[in-house]
């Protein structure tokens, strides 16, 4: 238990410190790197809570894919750091306001939160716990049986977002010479090579 408590405090402190560094680092690339550290410690906290599947998905999706794209974009930007600093004070009230609203909402949710009503009845009688050996399996059963329509709807929302972003960024340009792999592969020798007998002293 002591080890778990120590691990919790380690992850929690590093997560909060890294989160503070995300907003206070001078260099945006450093900010993204600290953001990655925060995600990582969040995953550690998930593992401590026994939610190993969520922890791994957090690392795969957020650290492995989303943060890479952030890093790509931030590295490509040509940013004037001094100019960036100037705006900070102007945006501070907005940032603080959003932070306070989020905090209030979290407090409200936490105050009104109770564990699922079915779960409360299991507390006295562990024998009635649904038989799901691992956390991944339990999550899968919940998602694909009880919440299948919501799950499909979430997938559709993502699909629409994907199509939307492709439509927004796709542009058709005139006069672009495209490579057609099929044509290249199906090209035959006799279509492109001709062997001629050339007499010496004469051209073709």
């Amino acid at each position, binding site marked *: 238990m002591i080890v778990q408590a120590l691990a919790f405090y380690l992850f929690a402190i590093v997560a909060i410190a890294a989160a503070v560094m995300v907003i206070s680092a001078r260099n945006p690339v450093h900010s993204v790197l600290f953001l990655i550290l925060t995600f990582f410690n969040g995953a550690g906290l998930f593992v401590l809570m026994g939610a190993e599947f969520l922890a791994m998905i957090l690392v795969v999706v957020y650290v492995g894919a989303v943060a*890479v794209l952030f890093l790509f974009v931030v590295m490509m930007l040509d940013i004037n750091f001094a100019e960036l600093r100037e705006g900070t004070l102007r945006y501070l009230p907005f940032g603080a306001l959003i932070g306070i609203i989020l905090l209030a909402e979290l407090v409200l949710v936490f105050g009104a939160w109770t564990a699922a009503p079915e779960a409360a009845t299991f507390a006295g009688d562990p024998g009635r716990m649904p038989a799901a050996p691992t956390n991944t399996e339990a999550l899968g059963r919940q998602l694909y049986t009880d919440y299948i329509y919501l799950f499909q709807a979430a997938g559709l929302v993502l699909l629409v977002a994907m199509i939307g972003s492709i439509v927004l960024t796709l542009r058709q340009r005139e006069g672009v010479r495209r490579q057609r792999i099929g044509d290249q592969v199906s090209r035959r020798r006799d279509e492109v090579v001709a062997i001629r007998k050339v007499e010496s002293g004469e051209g073709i």
Partner: protein
Amino acid sequence: MDSLQGMIDAYPWIGDYLLPTLLLLVQIVLIVVILLLSVAYTTYAERKVMAAMQLRQGPIAVGPFGLLQPIADGLKLLGKETIIPAGANRVVFVIAPMVTFLLSLVAWAVIPFGDGMVLADINVGILYLFAISSLGVYGIIMAGWASNSKYAFLGALRSAAQMVSYEVSIGFVMITVLLCAGSLNLSTIVESQSGGFWKWYFLPLLPMFVIFFISTLAETNRAPFDLPEGESELVGGYNVEYSAMTFALFFLGEYANMILMSGMTTILFLGGWLPPVDVVPFTWVPGPVWFAAKIALCLFVFVWVRATVPRYRYDQLMRLGWKVFLPFSIFWVIATAGYLVAFDLLP
């Protein structure tokens, strides 16, 4: 012995915390030492095998058959000076090789070397491996950015785009294997293939096996997908500015990743530590030996490919990843799931 028992009784924390920690440390050191030795001799094997394929001799000067060559190379790198470029972002520049090296070691925690021989037998082992391998891109992209050099940056961008692209199809290949095995635990996945080599997943899932192997080539930035370090256009890729031990860490990390990917191929498709046939002379050989032999086979194919196949062009690489492998692997996931459900074979 009595006094030791007495000490454990007197101070329960010794038995509760100290001894397990020491045991864990010994196991970790053992794995790391064996891994680093394998990395050293993978480089040697690569040079020898490529030399044989190109009718050369390879390293012969240091020790018998040049066997001490990797050690001489390591010592040489250790003795050199670490140069940090003037325009580099010092902290990130130094952290990048450490990240690469660390990630290549950390993944081995969940690899089962034999029946029950695994450091951490976690239930989401395969997801852990996937997560760690998707983090590998950070070492490279940080190195490229922190070097403050055009070549390094271009190499890093290429590498990152390539690794992110091929990870997607690796993920789908893993899902097909998971469907067949019915578990995310690596030991269970290996055990579900027991009964002889015709039960290993490389036969029923042959197309996925091929896709997985090619994707691991791309994921480890090996030939024919070694564009990040395409020396003809980028000098040496993301690690041009690195020297001495910082370079050595990248090098070690890269080869450790190759071995790791071969290990993943072995676990997912070649039956891990299981013998090819369950009859007597084969079952006498201990599991870790089979595991190592299968990894060596995969590594040989890695080298073989490098010696034979010319480098891909970058747009062709992206086309292969997104337009060929991705649709095909999605189709195969659906086909496998449909087959398993239709014939009621789900584990």
